[in-house]
């Protein structure tokens, strides 16, 4: 059966209303996640698991506060619900998920959903909060006023799920379409009707949904600028403008009409539906007394961040060792079973080393996603954003950018993907542009090798090892660079209004283990898929470039010197010499485009030292310290040169995998190329100043 012939139901609701929990309860494990083509909005689909219902699909729409299509999430939700997307069938039934704890605000979207003219079931979720507060909700009254079935439930505990399922069964067998409940101001009834007629005759919406859509066109700024209106824009514009003029004449703002009308209905309905709250502080209020306290807030945030980092690095170590062991065994197996030669080398040095070098970060990435999911699901993310919003705002970013930037400390790939939490396009782009400046885990092996080689191991103030201080400095430098770059871009190429959207501070809730595991699993699969495809391909290419052309008689350690990459390194030496790099460092740097830590194994190859574990490089360090400058006879790897190498790694976009993800998330080669260019230029410029300046001062 064609997907478009299968009945679909859509689940819509505010963010944090428990939509996903209900979706999971209805679909079980039979669900899949993909992207809506052309936008970075996730599409969650599943097959309904309800007895007596066969082959009904469910779509979990992105969480939205309003149906007016402005942000990507809203555009997708709006278009799916109205059957305007070619990739998604129009739903027959809408489940409007409502958080009973923030009933008034949730009902705004609910009344918008009623205006679509489709059968609607209200899932009145989180009833436990009302019970806790001693607030009584008259469900029968709410049903009567909205004109649709209302199912009270606490989905996180499975309460109300059977009732919701039977409501869906009833609705599928005898669908009752809804109608909008609000009163449209008399002054615009006539133009709205004309606008609605135009929309129907142009084939944009069904007759039942037309008035609601017309109202949205009137109340939303630039509503006609969407490409889909191209053919009818000139016919619709005078009607929209006429309506706006009429509204202004009655001393109202045109953009306020819908909100006023809907909240007028809600205000009138509430007293009969919801009882008074008995004073009893919620857990949220008690937690927030500390977690968003002017002093306790930042302190607890710093503590949480630190705790997460320590856990990521500590807990991930064991599975990371396993992965390294597995790839090591795999390489051994290849060596014993595949005859020595190019094929064996390709498998061991290209495929296994390349893919293994990236996959080794999987445990860290999984843990990172696990912690992020806890913060998201519990409602803490919004508090972190609240605490940091002022600082982020000064460089043109939203408080929500905290999550992507924080993630980038483990790996820029999840960081760039996490930027999806930012609604405003300009803010999201700015965040993506600076995310790779955060010190990712793959930079550590490079810093450890170089700092261990060139920085004397002396104690500062008697107890702080100097190499550790230098490492800390590199991490901080990345953050400083990110702030500076953001400030510059915000005033130049990414000028434009920073989002000043209100940020919702939802109630805290217990994270659901199912959701956590689910998120972790989904992200990991994405990452593994990438390692198996793009990264695999790049590893093979890098291997070929560092190995060919080759003659059988060339010893392995000299191969790289005569390879394409080696020759290329020598060609570009004039470009990198001014920053203190010779062709060897250049080749190692180029090869680390696969993953920054590959720098270590490439240096080992070039200098003919065996390094099995990139974190244990004592032999290589000793070898590097022996290296002499052919002209002066003094040590080649001086502290100044080492610092330049580290600085280059702090600032440059030395990671093809991140570029691939940036390309996908921005949908633009232009921005991807720009990012690579600006980071490389920045790295080169800073290293140039440091190297030349240092030498002028006689340090080099």
């Amino acid at each position: 059966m064609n997907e478009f012939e299968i009945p679909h139901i859509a689940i819509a609701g505010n963010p944090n209303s428990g939509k996903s929990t209900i979706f999971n309860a209805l679909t079980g494990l039979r669900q899949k996640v993909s992207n809506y083509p052309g936008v970075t909005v996730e599409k969650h689909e599943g097959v309904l698991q309800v007895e007596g219902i066969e082959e009904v699909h469910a779509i979990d729409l992105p969480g939205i506060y309003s149906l007016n299509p402005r942000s990507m999430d809203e555009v997708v939700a709006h278009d799916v619900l109205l059957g305007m997307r070619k990739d998604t069938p129009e739903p027959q039934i809408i489940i409007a998920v409502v958080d009973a704890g923030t009933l008034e605000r949730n009902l705004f979207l609910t009344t918008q959903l009623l205006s679509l003219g489709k059968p609607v079931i209200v899932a009145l979720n989180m009833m436990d909060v009302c019970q806790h507060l001693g607030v009584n909700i008259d469900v029968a009254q709410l049903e009567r006023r909205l004109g649709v079935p209302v199912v009270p439930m606490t989905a996180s505990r499975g309460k109300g799920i059977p009732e919701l399922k039977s409501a869906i069964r009833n609705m599928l067998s005898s669908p009752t379409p809804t109608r909008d409940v609000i009163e449209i101001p008399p002054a615009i009834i006539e133009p709205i009707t004309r606008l609605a007629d135009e929309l129907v005759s142009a084939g944009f919406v069904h007759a039942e949904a037309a008035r609601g859509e017309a109202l949205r066109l009137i109340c939303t700024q630039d509503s006609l600028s969407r490409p889909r209106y191209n053919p009818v824009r000139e016919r619709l514009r005078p009607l929209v403008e006429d309506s706006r003029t009429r509204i202004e004449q009655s001393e109202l703002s045109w953009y306020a009409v819908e909100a006023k009308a809907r909240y007028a209905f809600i205000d009138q309905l509430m007293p009969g539906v919801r009882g008074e709250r008995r004073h009893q502080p919620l857990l949220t209020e008690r937690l927030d007394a500390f977690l968003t306290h002017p002093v306790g807030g930042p302190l607890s945030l710093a503590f949480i961040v630190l705790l997460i980092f320590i856990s990521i690095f500590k807990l991930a170590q064991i599975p990371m060792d396993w992965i390294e062991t597995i790839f090591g065994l795999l390489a051994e197996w290849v060596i014993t079973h595949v005859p020595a030669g190019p094929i064996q080398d390709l498998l061991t040095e290209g495929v296994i080393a390349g893919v293994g070098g990236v996959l080794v970060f999987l445990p860290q990435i999984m843990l990172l996603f696990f912690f992020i999911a806890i913060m998201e699901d519990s409602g803490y993310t919004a508090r972190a954003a609240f605490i940091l919003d002022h600082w982020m705002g000064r460089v043109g970013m939203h408080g929500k950018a905290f999550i992507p930037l924080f993630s980038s400390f483990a790996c820029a790939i999840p960081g760039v993907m996490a930027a999806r939490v930012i609604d405003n396009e300009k803010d999201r782009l700015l965040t993506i542009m600076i995310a790779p400046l955060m010190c990712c885990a793959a930079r550590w092996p490079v810093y450890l090798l170089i700092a261990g080689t060139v920085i004397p191991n002396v104690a500062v103030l008697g107890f702080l090892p100097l190499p550790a201080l230098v490492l800390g400095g590199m991490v901080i430098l990345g953050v400083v660079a990110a702030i500076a770059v953001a400030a510059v871009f915000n005033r130049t190429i990414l000028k434009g209004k920073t989002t000043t959207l209100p940020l919702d501070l939802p109630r805290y809730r217990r994270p659901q283990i199912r959701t956590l595991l689910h998120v972790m699993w989904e992200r990991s699969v994405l990452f593994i898929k990438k390692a198996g495809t793009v990264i695999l391909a790049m590893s093979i290419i890098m291997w070929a470039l560092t190995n060919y052309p080759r003659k059988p008689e060339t010893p392995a350690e000299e191969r790289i010197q005569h390879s394409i990459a080696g020759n290329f390194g020598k060609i570009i030496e004039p470009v990198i010499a001014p920053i203190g790099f010779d062709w060897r460092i250049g080749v190692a740097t180029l090869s680390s485009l696969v993953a920054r830590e590959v720098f270590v194994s490439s240096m080992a190859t070039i200098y003919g030292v065996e390094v099995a574990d990139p974190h244990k490089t004592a032999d290589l360090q000793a070898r590097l310290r022996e290296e002499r400058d052919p002209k002066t006879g003094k040590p080649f790897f001086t502290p100044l040169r080492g610092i330049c190498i580290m600085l280059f790694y702090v600032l440059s976009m030395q990671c093809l995998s991140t570029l691939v993800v940036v390309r996908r998330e921005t949908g633009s080669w232009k921005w991807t190329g720009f990012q690579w260019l600006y980071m490389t230029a920045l790295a080169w410029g800073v290293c140039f100043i440091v190297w030349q300046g240092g030498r002028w001062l006689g340090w080099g």
Partner: protein
Amino acid sequence: MENAKITLESLAPGQSARVLALELPPAEAQRLMEMGMTPGSTVKVLKRAPLGDPIEIFVRSGHLSIRNSIARAITVNLA
């Protein structure tokens, strides 16, 4: 005497007020109104973030964080 306007920004934590007008560009005003802050609604300032910006407010059953630059543009009437 100049008719001094009270804005949401000038309220102290714990104070409630009634929203008079949102002197903001249409898109931003529409957002805030959709989230409950329509003229006539009651809003309570709950707390300020470190450095006094943004502020946490309670409006129509929801907790929101808004920046001072926005709160400054919302005129209110002490209830």
